[in-house]
C-alpha cells in the first residue's frame, strides 16, 4: 500500500514536471510549421553548407523565441545531400511527399539549386535561393524560384570599376567550367567591354584540375596585369599557388573562396591583397546585421561568413512574406515574394518578374594584412583598395 501510495505521488509529480517542461512548447497549440531543406554538409560544398546550416538554425531559434511563424513553432528538417545534385533531388521529393513539409529552403550551390528547382516548381513550393547566384536559374521561366542576392553575372562589376578608377586596363579571365563560374566569367567579359577594359587572355579549365600553372603562364604571357579567377575556394587557392610557383604577382581577384576565413587559413600571408566578391560582411551597417553577427559568434563561437548570412536572410525573407500574406498558403506566399520589397541583414530584397534578384548590392573585399576589408562600394568601404 505504501509502495503504491509513493508510486502515485511520483506519478503526479512526474505529470506536473512533464507539464512544466512541456509548457513552453505548448504555449502555441498550433502544430509546428515544418520547413525542409538539404545542404551539402559533406562533400565539396560542406564548408559553405555548414555555414548555411548554422545561419538557418540561428534564424529558427530566433523566430521560435519570437512566438514562431503565425504563432506556430518553426521546425527545420535538414538533410545532407552530400553535395550531390541527384541526392538532393531525391531528398527534396522526400521532404515534400513524405515529410509533408509546409515550406522549403534552398540547398547550397548553383549546381544543386538548378537540379532541384524543377521539383520545387512542380510541387509549387516558393523557394528563396540562398546558396546560388547562377543567372541561368532565372532564365528557365520558373515561377516559384526567387533570388536573394546578386547574380553571378555581376559578381566582378565592382572590382572592374576599381580597375577603371585606377586606370588599369589589361585583364586575364580564367574560369572553372562550372555553371556559376562560367557565368561570372561571362559577366566579367561583358562589364569589361562596357568599361572599355581590355581582355588579354580568357581561358576555362575543367573543375578539379589542380595544377593551374600552365594557365597562369599563358595569362602572364598575354601581357595582362590583372588575373580574375572565376571559381570556388579550391580553385582560388590553386590559382594563387600557381601564380606563386611561376613568380608572377598580378592584381588578383577570385570569386567566392577569398571571402571565407578559410582562404586566409590556407594561404596565410600569401592571401594578402587578394580581391574577392562578398555578398555580406558583418561590418556593413544594415539593420540587425551587427545583432546577427554577435548572436552567431556567441552561439557558434566562430565568425559567420556571407553564406551563413544569406541563409539567415532567406529566413528573414520568408518570415516577412508570411507576415505580409497572413498565411503560409504557398500560392499567396509566391505572389507576395514576387512583388514585395524587404530589408535583410544582407541588404535589399526585390526580384524582377523572372525571380532574379535586382536590388541586392554585392561587396568587393580585399585581404589586407590578414584583414578582410571592404573596398567597394566606396560609400561603405573599410579601406582603400591596394593595387601593387
Amino acid at each position, binding site marked *: 500500500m505504501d509502495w503504491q501510495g509513493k508510486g502515485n505521488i511520483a506519478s503526479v509529480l512526474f505529470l506536473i514536471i512533464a507539464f512544466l517542461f512541456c509548457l513552453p512548447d505548448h504555449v502555441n497549440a498550433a502544430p509546428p510549421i515544418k520547413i525542409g531543406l538539404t545542404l551539402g554538409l559533406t562533400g565539396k560544398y560542406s564548408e559553405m553548407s555548414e555555414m548555411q546550416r548554422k545561419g538557418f538554425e540561428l534564424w529558427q531559434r530566433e523566430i521560435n523565441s519570437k512566438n514562431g511563424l503565425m504563432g506556430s513553432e518553426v521546425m527545420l528538417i535538414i538533410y545532407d545531400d552530400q553535395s550531390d545534385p541527384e541526392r538532393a533531388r531525391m531528398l527534396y521529393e522526400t521532404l515534400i511527399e513524405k515529410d509533408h513539409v509546409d515550406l522549403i529552403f534552398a540547398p547550397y550551390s548553383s549546381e544543386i539549386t538548378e537540379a532541384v528547382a524543377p521539383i520545387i516548381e512542380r510541387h509549387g513550393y516558393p523557394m528563396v535561393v540562398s546558396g546560388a547566384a547562377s543567372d541561368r536559374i532565372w532564365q528557365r521561366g520558373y515561377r516559384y524560384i526567387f533570388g536573394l542576392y546578386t547574380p553571378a553575372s555581376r559578381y566582378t562589376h565592382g572590382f572592374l*570599376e576599381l580597375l*577603371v578608377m585606377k586606370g588599369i586596363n589589361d585583364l586575364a579571365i580564367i574560369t572553372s567550367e562550372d555553371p556559376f563560374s562560367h557565368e561570372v566569367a561571362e559577366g566579367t567579359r561583358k562589364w569589361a*567591354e*562596357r568599361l*572599355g577594359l581590355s581582355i588579354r587572355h580568357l581561358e576555362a579549365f575543367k573543375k578539379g584540375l589542380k595544377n593551374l600553372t600552365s594557365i597562369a603562364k599563358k595569362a602572364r604571357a598575354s601581357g595582362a596585369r590583372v588575373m580574375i579567377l572565376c571559381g570556388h575556394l579550391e580553385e582560388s587557392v590553386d590559382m594563387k599557388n600557381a601564380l606563386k610557383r611561376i613568380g608572377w604577382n598580378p592584381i588578383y581577384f577570385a570569386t567566392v573562396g577569398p571571402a571565407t576565413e578559410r582562404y586566409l587559413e590556407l594561404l596565410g600571408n600569401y592571401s594578402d591583397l587578394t580581391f574577392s566578391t562578398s555578398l555580406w560582411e558583418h561590418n556593413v551597417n544594415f539593420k540587425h546585421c551587427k545583432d546577427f553577427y554577435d548572436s552567431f559568434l556567441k552561439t557558434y563561437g566562430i565568425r559567420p561568413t556571407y553564406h551563413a548570412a544569406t541563409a539567415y536572410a532567406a529566413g528573414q525573407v520568408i518570415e516577412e512574406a508570411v507576415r505580409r500574406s497572413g498565411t503560409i498558403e504557398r500560392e499567396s506566399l509566391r505572389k507576395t515574394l514576387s512583388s514585395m520589397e524587404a530589408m535583410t541583414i544582407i541588404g535589399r530584397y526585390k526580384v*524582377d518578374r523572372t525571380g532574379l534578384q535586382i536590388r541586392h548590392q554585392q561587396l568587393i573585399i580585399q585581404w589586407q594584412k590578414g584583414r578582410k576589408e571592404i573596398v567597394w562600394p566606396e560609400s561603405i568601404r573599410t579601406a582603400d583598395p591596394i593595387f601593387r
Partner: protein
Amino acid sequence: MKMVLRRSIAFRIIVPVIAVTGIIGIISYLFLLRTISDFAHRQIGIGLEEMSKDIYEIYDNALNELVSKGLMNDDRAVKIQKARTIARIEEFMRVNNLRGVIYEQGGKPKEISSERLNMEAGPLELQELYESIRNLKEKKVSRLSFRGNDYYVFQMNLDLWKWHLIILKDASEHSSLLARVWLLYIITAIILLSSALFLMVYLRKVIHEPLNSIISSIKRGERPEYEGIEEFEFLSKNIKTMMDSLERETRLLNYVYYIAATKRGGDFFEEVVRAINHLFDINSLIARIGDDGKTGHILALYINGEIKKGFSLPLIGTPCQDVLEKRHLVVIERDVMKLYPDSELLREAGAESYIGFAIFDRKGQPIGILNGFGKAREYSESDIKVLQTLGQVVATEIERIDEEGEKERMREQLFQAQKMEAIGTLAGGIAHDFNNMLQGILGYASLLKLKIPETDPIYKPLEVIERTAERAAELTQQLLGYARKGKFLVEILNINDLVSAVIKIISRTFDRAIEIKTDLSDNIWRFEGDKGQMESVILNLCVNARDAMPGGGILTISTYNREIKEGDLPYSWARPGSYVVISVKDTGVGMDKETMKHIFEPFFTTKEIGKGTGMGLAMVYGVVKNHGGFITVESELGKGSTFTIYLPRTEAETKKDISEIKTPLAGAGTILIVDDEEAIRNLLRDALSGLGYSVMEASNGREAIELFNINKDRIDLIILDLIMPEMGGEETLIRLRQIDPDVKVIIATGFGVTQSLQEILKDRKVSGFVNKPFNIAEISEVIKTTLFKG
C-alpha cells in the same frame, strides 16, 4: 428544276444558315479581331513610349549623379557611370522584355549593348538590322519585320553621351494574343461552319428525309407509313387518315350518287335513311318543315330496323327545334335524353346520341331537317361531312318533288282553264241561241200584253209566259256571265259599297244561326267593274257560305288592299299589281280536294237536285276573270272555306249610276233593224211600228249597207246586231260610217260589253247599245235618247 430546288425546304434553311454564319464570321473579324489587333498595337506603342521615358530617366539620374559629385570631367568616373547606366538600361530591358542596342555616336558607330534574348540572328545580321533601324526616318515608335518576326522599334538620342538608343519589342508577345484571337476566330468559324454543316445534315435527317418519305408515298398514291419524329409521325398519320377518309368519303359519295341517280321521292328518302343506318349504325329521320315551322312532316324515318313515313311530328321539345332555330349543326354525343326528356321519338329509339341539321333550298330557306340518333358515339368531321352531303341531296330531292308538284299543278290548272274555256264556249253558244229564242218569247209576250187589256183571260197566261221567259233569261245571263259574255256596264266601284248592299239583303234573308261579320278596310282602293255582276258575285259567295253552314256558323266578309308580286300569283295568267281583295269565309263543312277541283265548273253542284243550278260559282269565276281578277279557295273538310277575290285596282274616279226606265216610249222616224235572227227582226218591227216608228229590215251587214246606201236620207237610226254571218256588226258599222259618218247606231248584243265592244263604242261613235234579250221599254228608251241626242 432550279425553281424546285429554290423552293425546297433544304434550300430555304441552308441558305440562311450559311448567310448567317458568313455574316457572323465577317462581323467578328471586322469588329472583334481588328479592334483587338488595333488596340494591341496602340497599347504597345504607348507602352514603348512610356518605357523610353523610363530609360531616359535612368540616363538622366546617372548624369545627375555625376554632376552632383562634380565628376563630369572625370573620364574614369564617367566611364564607370556609363557602364552602370548601360547595365541599368539592360536590366530594365530584361525586366520589360525588351532588346536593343546603344550606339555611341561620333566616328564609327559602335554597338555597346545588346540583349539577344530569343533573337536567333548572328551579330552581322543584327548589325544590319540596327543599321536599317537607324536609317528609319520615324524616330519614335515604328514596326518592322526581321527574319520573319515582327518587332516594334523605338529609338532615341541621349545627347550628352552621344548615345543613340534603339529598343526592340517583340511583337510576337502580342501576336500571341492576336494569335489567340485568331485562333478563337478560326475556332468560331469552324464551329459555325460545322454547326451549319451539322445543321444541314441534321435538318436533312430530321426534316427532309421524313418529308421525302411521306411525299414519295403520297406521289405513289400509297399511305405514308412514317415512324420516328413525333411531328412527322403525326403528319403521316393524319395524311393517312385523310386519305382513308377521302377514300371512304368517295365510296360514300358514290353510294349517295347511286341513291340520287336511281331513286325518286319516297323511295329516295327511304334509301337515304337506310344508307345512314348502314353507314353510321344509327336511326335517322328526314322531315319537311311544316308551314308553322313547328311540325315535321316525316319523309322517312328509320327506327329500330323499321321504315315509317307519311305522318307528322311536333318538333317542340326535340333537338330539331334547336336545329331549326339556330340553323346550325347540333351534335350531342351522349345523354341526349337528359337534355330532351319530352321527345317521344328519342325515347322510342332509346337514343343516347343525336346529330341533326337543317337542310336548305336553293334560296337558303330551311325546308327540312335530317337527324340521326342512336347509341352514344362520336362524329368525326368526315362523318358530319357525309351526313351533310346526304342532307344536300335530300334538299335537292325535296325541291325536285316540289317543282314536279308545281308543274303538275300548273298542268292541271291549264287543263282546267282549257276545260272551262270549252265549257264557256259551249255555254255561250247555247246561251246565245237560247237568248234569241227567249227574245222572241219574251218580246211577243210583252207585245201581246200591250195589245190586250188586263181583264182579258189570256193576259194572266201571257204574264206567266213572260215571267218564265225572264227566269230563263236570268239563267242564260248567268251562263253568259260564266262564259264571260255577260253584260258589262263598267263603273268605278267601291267594293265596300257592294258588300254593304249585299249584307242588306242577306241579313234579312239568312238564318239567324249564321253570324255575319265584316272586316272592311277603310282605305279600300277602287276598281272598275259591272256593279250588278259584282253584287251577284258577292251574293253568290254568301249564299254558298250559308249553304255550307246548315247548322249555323260565322260568315266573315273582309276587304283589303293587296300588292301582289310575281311569286305570289296563284294562276299563271294572273298579273302582278295592286288588287282590291274581298274574302268570304265560312266555318262550314269545307271541301275535299276533289270537290275543290270542280267547283268552278258550270252545273257542278254538291247540293240536292233542284236546290242549285250549279251555275253560281261558275258565274263568279267567269265574272271575276272577266274583270281581270282572280279567285282563290282555301278549304279544309270540317273547318270551312274561304273564297278570296282579287280585283285590279283603278285610279279613275267614280261614275254616276245609270237610272233605269220602265215604260216603252213612243216616237217617230225610220229605223233600220239589222239582225240575222228573223224572230228578233219581227219582234222589233212589230214593237217599234206600234210605238210610231217606220221600220226597215236587213238580215245581214251587206243587206244593211245596200239599204242604207239607198235610204240614207230616210233612215234616222240603225239597230245593229254584232254577231251575224257574212258581214259582222263591227265591219258593218265601219262601212256605215264611211257612207255617213253621223249615222246613229244602237248596238244590240247578247254578250254584254266586252273589251272589244268597249273599243267599238268609243271609236265608232256608237250612239247607244242594248243587251239582248231586251224588253220593249228598255229599247224604246235607248232609241228615244239616241234620236233626241241629235
